[in-house]
């Protein structure tokens, strides 16, 4: 069963990543990358990394890719004024596929056996355990991450604002 899911999801991730680097339009690349992120989230969940699987969807597919799409939107608006999109069917199909992927992930997570690989205990990879690790052994890197995010925030604002003065 694990092998079957792996083959399907692995083939999908390879196919979508190839589509990402071969697609002529940046928007298609971004959408293919979102699909790759979902496939990887399924693979993470299969290896009992539940928290990381959810973070993958929330942070990568939810936040980082939206940032990419915003920048593509901003640049395209200036590049060709009023260029009409004629890929509505593709967009609808893609939205349906994404909804299906979320369904698969959620169902996979809720029906996950305690030890899918035969190696994991029931607590391995849960939010509580990863959180305990992050707040005890890796507390210093964890806190430094907040400084990194603040620096990135200030840097991004400074870079974009610098020409507006």
């Amino acid at each position: 069963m694990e092998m079957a899911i792996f083959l399907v999801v692995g083939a999908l991730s390879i196919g979508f990543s190839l589509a990402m680097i071969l697609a002529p339009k940046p928007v298609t690349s971004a959408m293919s990358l979102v699909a790759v992120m979902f496939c990887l989230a399924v693979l993470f969940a299969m290896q009992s990394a539940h928290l990381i699987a959810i973070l993958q969807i929330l942070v990568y597919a939810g936040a980082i890719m939206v940032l990419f799409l915003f920048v593509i939107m901003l640049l395209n608006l200036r590049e060709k004024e009023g260029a009409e999109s004629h890929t509505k069917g593709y967009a609808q199909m893609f939205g349906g596929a994404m909804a299906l992927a979320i369904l698969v992930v959620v169902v996979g997570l809720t029906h996950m056996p305690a030890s899918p690989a035969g190696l994991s205990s029931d607590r391995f990879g849960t939010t509580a355990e990863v959180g305990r690790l992050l707040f005890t052994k890796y507390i210093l890197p964890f806190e430094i991450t907040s400084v990194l995010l603040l620096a990135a925030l200030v840097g991004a604002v400074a870079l974009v604002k610098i020409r507006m003065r």
Partner: protein
Amino acid sequence: MMMNNYLMLSAALFVIGAVGVLIRRNMIVVMMCIELMLNAANLSFITFANYRHDMTGHAFVFMVIAVAAAEAAVGLAVVLAMFRNRETVNVDEVNSMKG
């Protein structure tokens, strides 16, 4: 052995990302390929964490996701600034520091 399959998939995704960085000239797509390579590395981390039954890999992936978010924010700000100054996102046309 499932672990080998995961590692081979991770290597394949990393290579696809590296090829993408080399063949694409749109800077936004190049950054997406970098994100793909980070994700491939994350898959290796999770695979080894599962195999060794050691959650250090999970903590590492957490950090990698945070760094990727910071990188994307700064990198896209650079893309916007570049587009504002040079009216291009082609990495070949931005070569004034090449020497």
